[in-house]
């Protein structure tokens, strides 16, 4: 079957040979399909290690939330659900533009690909911009775990009028209030690791835009764009869960 071309040497078959063996097909693969399937498999294995990495953080969150439930509720009331929702929308749109980018690469639309990658790049930066606003709110209120951490908002909720008028939280005992620091540790660790993945992704996007302008991914070899798409969507999924767990599940109390 497909092996038959290996024994044809005549010049009239040279064109069809080139078609079967594009320059990006590595010699240890039988076909471009096999090469694509293999790299897809490898990318998923990498993503599974990422699932385990973030999974550890999610498990820690789950256990501490069960232990120090009132502290986690009070802590999550400090997060701004509007910024969180906006960031979720920004990230979902960036996943969409990335998916469209993969389609442009597959259908060999160079300008479309550059546009999609650039939009993804801008939306990614927008996400980090909003995250910066949220982080600076936490820094102002001394809600960053460490030597300068302040439990004021939890020992005396009325001293934090903006949050108090919305949730009317009861004061926490000092014993429980100090565990809000644990909530913010997990908040900064999880959103921080997510933001680091975004920064790495945006860096690679910049490189890809540069290469895509030269037509790198629109001549048949789309593996890089496709696998980067998988990474970007994975980061989106992590945020979907972070948003639900950190921002939403204690909102009604």
């Amino acid at each position: 079957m497909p092996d038959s071309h290996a024994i044809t040497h005549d010049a009239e078959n040279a064109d069809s040979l080139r078609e079967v063996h594009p320059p990006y097909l590595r010699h240890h693969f039988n076909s471009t399909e096999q090469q694509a399937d293999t790299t897809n498999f490898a990318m998923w294995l990498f993503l599974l290690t990422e699932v385990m990495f973030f999974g550890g953080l999610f498990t820690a969150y789950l256990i501490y939330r069960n232990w120090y439930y009132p502290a986690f509720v009070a802590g999550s009331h400090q997060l701004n659900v509007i910024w969180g929702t906006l960031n979720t929308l920004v990230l979902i749109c960036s996943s969409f533009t990335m998916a469209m980018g993969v389609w442009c690469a597959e259908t060999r639309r160079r300008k479309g690909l550059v546009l999609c990658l650039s939009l993804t790049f801008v939306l990614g930066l927008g996400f980090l911009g909003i995250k910066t606003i949220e982080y600076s709110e936490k820094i102002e209120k001394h809600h960053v775990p460490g030597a300068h951490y302040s439990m004021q908002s939890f020992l005396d909720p009325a001293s934090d009028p903006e949050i108090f008028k919305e949730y009317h939280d009861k004061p926490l005992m000092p014993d429980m209030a100090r565990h809000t620091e644990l909530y913010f540790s997990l908040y900064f660790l999880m959103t921080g690791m997510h933001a680091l993945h975004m920064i790495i992704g945006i860096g690679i996007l910049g490189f890809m835009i540069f290469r895509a302008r030269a037509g790198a991914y629109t001549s048949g070899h789309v593996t890089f764009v496709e696998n980067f798409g998988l990474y970007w969507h994975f980061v989106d999924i992590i945020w979907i869960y972070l948003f639900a767990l950190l921002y939403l599940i204690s909102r009604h109390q």
Partner: protein
Amino acid sequence: MSGQNEHAHHIVGPGVYVAILFALLIGTGLTVWASFLELGPWNPVIALAIATTKAVLVVLFFMHVKYSTKLTKLTVFAGIFMFLVLISMTLADYISRAWGSW
């Protein structure tokens, strides 16, 4: 040999992507709305159910798993299953080890 070529590269078109985009946007609106309702123990259940639905849509369509090889499908499923096993075992340990003394 023929087995490797049975999955010709499937190109997912913009129509599917737009549909998924709207499903994800609606899911986001729904989960924010549901979070302000007083549903007791069902609040986290609903939030996680919506988040999981969104994640499944992203995995199947944006990440093309619906159209990919059996190897990829099995890999994704095995990874998520393993993750759930690890979480269950960890929680079983934490729940049973210090029973009643927290």
